[in-house]
């Protein structure tokens, strides 16, 4: 009996502390503080950018540190469309249908040169930039972009969410026109076996 009571008390104190913290942060930063740290990406991976997207989600780069690790393969559960790779004219209606099916509010990252401009694939079948037909919030350059660059793109979406995330995408107009810069300093990666 005594043991049970003490457990309850400890748990209660813990919960109250955490709740106070959350309430404080929401008072301070608005509901966007919670929303921007819980983006659910829809991985629309059609080419080699998809491999970098997988690397971003895996343990080495670990996009879970930014609250975006819950990738779902149904647009109904997502609010961040990451278009990774070239889109051909047979695939564009699929991309548009996925964008329509995503819940509000929603954001779009155009990842890599092909999704943004068509890249080297300047042929009859490849759409020269998905932003002609789908509203894009953040363009991530690279061929393909490194995971650091994609993470910077997700952080750019977080900055957009922090500014006007609670509004629906209809209210906030056509994006903020942010472009992600690649890291200035080359990132030194170890082999993982250093002493």
């Amino acid at each position, binding site marked *: 009996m005594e043991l049970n009571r003490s457990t309850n008390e400890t748990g209660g104190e813990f919960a109250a502390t955490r709740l106070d913290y959350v309430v404080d942060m929401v008072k301070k930063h608005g509901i966007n503080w919670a929303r921007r740290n819980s983006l659910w990406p829809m991985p629309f991976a059609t080419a080699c950018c998809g491999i970098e997207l997988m690397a971003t989600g895996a343990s080495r780069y670990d996009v879970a540190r930014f609250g975006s690790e819950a990738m779902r393969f149904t647009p109904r559960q997502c609010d961040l469309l990451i278009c990774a790779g070239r889109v051909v*004219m*047979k695939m*564009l*209606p699929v991309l*548009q249908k996925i*964008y*329509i099916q995503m819940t509000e509010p929603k954001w779009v990252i155009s990842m890599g040169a092909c999704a943004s401009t068509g890249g080297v694939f*300047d*042929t*009859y*079948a*490849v*759409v*020269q930039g998905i932003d*002609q*037909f*789908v*509203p894009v919030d953040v363009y991530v350059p690279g061929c393909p972009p490194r995971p650091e660059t994609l993470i910077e793109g997700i952080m750019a979406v977080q900055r957009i969410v922090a500014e006007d995330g609670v509004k629906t*995408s*209809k209210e*906030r*107009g*056509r994006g903020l026109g942010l472009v992600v810069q690649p890291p200035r300093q080359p990132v030194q990666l170890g082999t993982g076996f250093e002493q």
Partner: protein
Amino acid sequence: MATADAVQALQERFPDLGIEPRPLMRYLNGKPSDQLWVRVPADRLLEVLTFLRDDERTKFEALADLGGIDYLNYPDAEDRFAVIYNLLSHTHGHRLWVKVFVNDPDPEIPSATSVWKGAEWPEREVFDMFGIRFPGHPDLRRILMPQNFVDYPLRKDYPLHGKGEREAFEVLTRDSA
């Protein structure tokens, strides 16, 4: 048994076609390749292919590949299109290329699906890319391009950037979706 024996059997069976084997290519030192191709008229094609599949000396059980060529603006070309059948014999271990030439308008070649089942999808691809029809094909639809596409994109007179098909989509805005 080499490819030359298969060609000889073909010449003995079809003396009226005037079949003459030609090397598929020449190496840089001028030496001809030992891989051979033969030219066959379109109206006798199925007869020849069935013979090549069934005869003991040829025995081409497999159609390894089937593709199209557009010879528009090609030097010394007499015909507009060609369809190439790449035949492979597992029994004898030899190959033979059979070329059929066709011309505008309405290029047509009898379908090889009755000889090799595997010709179905390559013939759909040739139809999709070059507009060559294959009478006798069970299901001649486009295989790569969308069904509402009207042109044949691998023809040489089709522009590399297309005729605006890649821009012809509904624009989704934040207000509309």
